[in-house]
């Protein structure tokens, strides 16, 4: 399987290197759906058309394809069990780039029993693609995917209405689906919704605009992914710096060095800024900031840096640095939307471990306020437990205060995970909605 030697000074190689090394940002995408929706074919198409599929991979799927054409869906499902059963069980990550952007794509399962894996993939996404089969319209599964994306506050949602070739590129069909979805999305508080008619199998409107739907004036899917504006999705207002690790060299060269390492959760921090440290509430100022390449003057999310403070305070992991006039809420009472991920149900009085930013505490479930029906959005206040993949409003009381913001305003300080202290399994994901009681 040797290939011809690359002339590294050829125009093609130099151009490829220039594109590859161009200054780009990352867009994290989550797709959800099942094989039947054409999800794997769509991903295969994006990877193939953006040249992220290598020849040896292509040859392998060419050999494995059973029909007349190469089955791009075979590029994605990576586990033996997935290939055998023809379903996606767990999230797989794929990488591709264009001259404008680089993309991390979390290919997540659509089946309800693997919801926790879908949530894993969607939790870090900037944009979620929900696939809808044009012949079937919006199904329960598409509603659930859109709901989960909105629950996790994925800032951008794209509905790809696939298999348009099988409905003769009917404008009415497309618009009916788009309208139904928009009405549902309005109830979910989705900040940015885009609907695109595509045929993943034939590549229409995936990478380039197709002339089969002259009535569609919008961009191709890839064009949208390349241009969607994500810079303002971050919170650059509220300075939040959870202390992750205390750096103390204790060496002759750095005898008095004491730095607080962590990742900027939100806001901008500058040398000289007056800051407050929680839980002590003591104030000081930032004496210096050390970045990966030495001292820097200002930092912003998601930079991983080390702060040095002007005064010698007692600061440790789990503390939070913010500004005196803009502090998060310190609370032992969490009123959260919880996505439950364990077979053993969540019940009142249960004890759990909570991890919130870099702070780990214990908690007891005080109350299950309601369980949410994801399809109807009905709130069942009679519910006594949350089962696997259920979502509900839960009140927790923690052993120590946490420093929290609304998840809508701050995705980092408004979220937490729940861990079973006996099995050590991650059993829940929590988000703090606004207007908490």
């Amino acid at each position, binding site marked *: 399987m040797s*290939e011809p030697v*690359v002339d590294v000074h050829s125009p093609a190689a130099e151009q490829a290197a220039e594109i590859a090394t161009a200054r780009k*940002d990352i867009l994290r995408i989550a797709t959800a759906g099942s094989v039947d929706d054409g999800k794997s074919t769509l991903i295969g198409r994006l990877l193939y058309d953006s040249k992220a599929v290598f020849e040896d991979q292509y040859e392998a799927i060419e050999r494995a394809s059973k029909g007349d054409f190469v089955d791009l869906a075979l590029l994605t499902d990576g586990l033996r069990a997935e290939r055998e059963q023809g379903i996606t069980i*767990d999230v797989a990550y794929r990488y591709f780039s264009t001259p404008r952007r680089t993309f991390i794509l979390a290919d997540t399962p659509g089946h309800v029993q693997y919801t926790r894996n879908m949530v894993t993939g969607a939790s870090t996404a900037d944009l979620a693609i929900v696939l809808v089969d044009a012949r079937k319209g919006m199904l329960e599964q598409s509603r659930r995917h859109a709901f989960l994306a909105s629950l996790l506050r994925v800032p951008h949602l794209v509905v790809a209405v696939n298999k348009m070739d099988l409905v003769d590129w009917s404008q009415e069909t497309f618009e009916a689906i788009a309208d139904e979805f928009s009405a549902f999305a309005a109830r979910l508080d989705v900040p940015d919704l885009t609907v695109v008619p595509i045929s993943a199998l034939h590549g229409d409107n995936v990478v380039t605009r197709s002339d089969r739907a002259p009535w569609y004036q919008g961009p191709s899917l890839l064009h949208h992914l390349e241009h969607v504006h994500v810079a303002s999705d971050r919170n650059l207002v509220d300075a939040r710096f959870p202390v992750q690790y205390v750096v103390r060299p204790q060496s002759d060269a750095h005898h008095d060095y004491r730095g607080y390492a962590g990742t900027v959760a939100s806001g901008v921090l500058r040398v000289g800024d007056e800051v407050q440290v929680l839980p002590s509430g003591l104030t000081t100022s930032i004496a210096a900031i050390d970045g990966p390449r030495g001292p820097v003057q200002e930092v912003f999310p998601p930079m991983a840096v080390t702060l040095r403070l002007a005064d010698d305070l007692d600061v440790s992991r789990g503390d939070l640095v913010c500004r005196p006039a803009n502090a998060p809420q310190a609370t032992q009472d969490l009123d959260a939307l919880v996505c439950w991920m364990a077979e053993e149900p969540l019940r009142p009085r249960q004890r759990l471990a909570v991890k919130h930013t870099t702070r780990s505490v214990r908690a007891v479930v005080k109350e299950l306020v309601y369980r949410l029906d994801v399809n109807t959005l009905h709130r069942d206040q009679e519910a006594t437990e949350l089962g696997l993949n259920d979502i509900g409003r839960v009140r927790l009381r923690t052993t120590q205060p946490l420093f929290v913001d609304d998840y809508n305003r701050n995705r980092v300080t408004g979220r937490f995970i729940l861990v079973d202290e006996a099995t050590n399994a991650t059993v829940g994901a929590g988000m703090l909605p606004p207007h908490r009681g």
Partner: protein
Amino acid sequence: MTTPDYRLTQLETLEAESIHVIREVAAELERPVLLFSGGKDSIVMLELARKAFAPARIPFPVMHVDTGLNFPDVLEFRDKRVAELGVQLVVASVPDAIARGVVKEEPNGSRNRIQTPVLLDAVEEHGFTALFGGARRDEDKARAKERVFSFRDEFGQWDPKNQRPELWDLYNGRIHLGESIRVFPLSNWTELDVWQYIAREGIAIPPLYLAQEREVVERQGMLYAVNEFVRPREGERVFRESVRYRTVGDANLTAAVRSRATTVEEVIAEVAVTRMTERGATRGDDKVSDAAMEDRKKEGYF
């Protein structure tokens, strides 16, 4: 470096994510160790670990699973780098394990499988609870499925059908005695990202990664440089060719690729236009089956 609109480039974002992961492990797990082979991915991972704790030393040792089939250049590089950083090096030796009868040499000469029990023994002996590996998700479709914090049971096994959910960057490092976590800080890096980072940061790499005229033989369409582990077999023609290594594994089974790339910048140009995966182009041992990597990982391989 940074723009007024407070955006990070792809490399800066990946760097921040990796440093966050490394610090999280050091803060939460009792005895981490970083797997360092002298290959480019583990070199970058070690550099990120250095940055994570600077100006303090890296607060955990590094470990090399020594198959006894190393390129001499790479071993020399390993020792030099470890000395520069002042970190402790733990060597888990496959030849020692063979001599002690713990593992048996496989008929095809590959020590890929038998290094797994050697690794697991060393983990048990030293009580390591977290093992940093330089694996990337773009390398293989089984790796594409793995979490950043990948839970392993007391036998070091991976259960791909029952992985812990992994939400946001809230990693769960809780384990019982005997269990461990494999941690992959470079999960989201691609081969090209690694090379760009090496170029950007001016990170030293073993000379094997750059093209040079070497004596080679051709086996099953792949070029193997003649060295103490690769001797020309009967009927094989030895010829000189400008080649470099895209991956550095065992010297007896890692093939080289024809290349004119003599600088890191030229390597980037080559990787940017190449149409073969790293492993497909250079690893005799990954071709066994479509699920070779998945099967090895279930047994405790990295």
